[in-house]
């Protein structure tokens, strides 16, 4: 009897025929399941697989990936906050370097003291040659000039040391609201000072104008290479010694932006590529005791924090951010 006849008979009788073995090819497998139900053919399904477990597993994977993503995002946020904090601290410190234009005025005092010694020596040379009766008066004024130059040198050295100490104190005392980050898988610490360097910005001269009213001194300084010819300013970070016998005196002029059209340059941030180091004031959070030969006009601050993970003790690293800041420039002469 054909299969279709048997299927028709089942429908009428309501009894299920004996089905062939599952391994045998079943022609009615191609029938729609609804026909199978009407025909009383039991449904056949595979015994392996569990969608609930699959969904749970996928949910777990998604949650894990999301948590890792959040942790990494938190790490990047901390990195950004570290950069912001470094900039803020650097700027606050730079604003204190040349308060009330002490550095600019000291540069000018050094230059004026130098010119005074030069003039006194010139008068003495003339008097010794032509007016010997005035020698004692010329000696008196020359001695006073030289003593004043030594006094100015001491004050300048004191200013350089005081500036460095002020920078260290400001950076150390700087309070911040930087909080630790504690997330699943990631932990970051509070930022600490790694390095503080004092120096200057490459390409910036001093704020001292060349002695255009003193022809002899101007010619001497031009020949000695002390003056930047394009700007008519003394070069920065020089020791403008006078000729013998006054070459034992130091006349150190440091870098500082000069006023332009009567306007003083404000303190500002700068790129680390143009910073030139003079002294390392702090290393690993502690003062090194280094001294600056010239009064610094710029500084570079590096903050760092550690990031670690609970996955492994070896899974830890350091985030560091550096920022350079330049002090305010000199003010015009009175």
């Amino acid at each position, binding site marked *: 009897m054909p299969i279709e006849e048997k299927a028709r008979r089942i429908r009428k009788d309501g009894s299920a025929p004996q089905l062939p073995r599952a391994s045998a090819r079943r022609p009615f497998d191609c029938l729609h399941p609804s026909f199978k139900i009407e025909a009383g053919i039991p449904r056949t399904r595979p015994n392996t697989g569990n969608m609930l477990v699959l969904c749970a597993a996928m949910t777990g994977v998604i949650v894990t990936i999301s948590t890792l993503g959040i942790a990494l995002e938190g790490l990047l946020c901390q990195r950004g906050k570290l950069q912001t904090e470094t900039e803020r601290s650097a700027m606050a410190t730079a604003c204190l370097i040349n308060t*009330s234009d*002490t550095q600019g*005025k*000291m540069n*000018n*005092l050094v*230059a*004026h*003291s130098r*010119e*005074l010694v030069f*003039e006194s020596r*010139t*008068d003495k040379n*003339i*008097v010794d040659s*032509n*007016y010997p*009766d*005035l020698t*004692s*008066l*010329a000696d*008196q*004024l020359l001695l*006073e*000039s030289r*003593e*004043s130059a030594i*006094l*100015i040198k*001491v*004050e300048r050295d*004191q*200013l350089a040391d*005081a500036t460095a100490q002020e920078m260290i104190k400001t950076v150390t005392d700087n309070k911040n609201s930087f909080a630790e980050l504690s997330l699943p898988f990631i932990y970051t610490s509070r930022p600490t000072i790694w390095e503080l360097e004092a120096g200057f910005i490459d390409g910036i001269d001093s704020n001292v104008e060349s*002695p255009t*009213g*003193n*022809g002899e*001194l101007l010619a001497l300084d031009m020949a000695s290479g002390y003056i930047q010819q394009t700007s008519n300013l003394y070069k920065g970070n020089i020791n403008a010694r006078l000729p013998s016998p006054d070459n034992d005196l130091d006349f150190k002029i440091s870098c500082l932006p000069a006023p332009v059209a009567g306007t003083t340059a404000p303190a500002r941030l700068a790129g680390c590529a143009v910073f030139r180091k003079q002294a390392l004031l702090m290393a690993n959070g502690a003062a090194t005791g280094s001294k600056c030969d010239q009064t610094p006009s710029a500084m570079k601050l590096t903050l760092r924090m550690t990031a670690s993970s609970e996955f492994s003790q070896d899974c830890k690293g350091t985030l560091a951010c550096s920022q350079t800041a330049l002090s305010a420039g000199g003010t015009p*002469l*009175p």
Partner: protein
Amino acid sequence: MNKQVVAILLFTCQLIIWQAQQPAASQIKSTYDWTIQIETKELNNYYPAKDTNLRDFVLCNITLCPASGSPKNYEQLFYASDRCIGARRINPLALKHGDEVAIRLKRPEGPPSPSQTSAAANAVVRCLLDAFAAGGIATTILTPPEAYLNTIQGMAREKFFIAPPATPDEPRYSKISVHIYSEPEGQQDELIYQ
């Protein structure tokens, strides 16, 4: 008649003697080839660094005034703690050999401080040397009457002292001699460098 003539002659002699005893009506020349004018100005809080020994900043502006022509800024002298610490030449000293030079102290605004007085005296001495070195003849210092005594005290710190009265039998040993007058006139002295 004879009595009247004698009386007139006596009166005339007395008048002549009295005139001879009076100083000259004016020993300040009305014109000099150059007048170096010194003006002092206090710079309050000029260098506000911590623990500094530089205090009481004074700026001396020195101007060259020719007999005919407009004045020119010559130099600025900087003073602190009663000592000269710097100079800034603005224009050269355009003196010729033999030019007569007077140094005038300009009356400051308000009563001068001791630092200003000390600075003015030192500036006078430096201008004297500059004038001598340039070949000028600087023998006169003019000062306001109210600053006359202080100027003399300041000059004493620079080793310029009032000359003792000249006597015919005692020579005076001094290489540098200047006269100081108050302007308007009333006081005068001779200062010698010792």
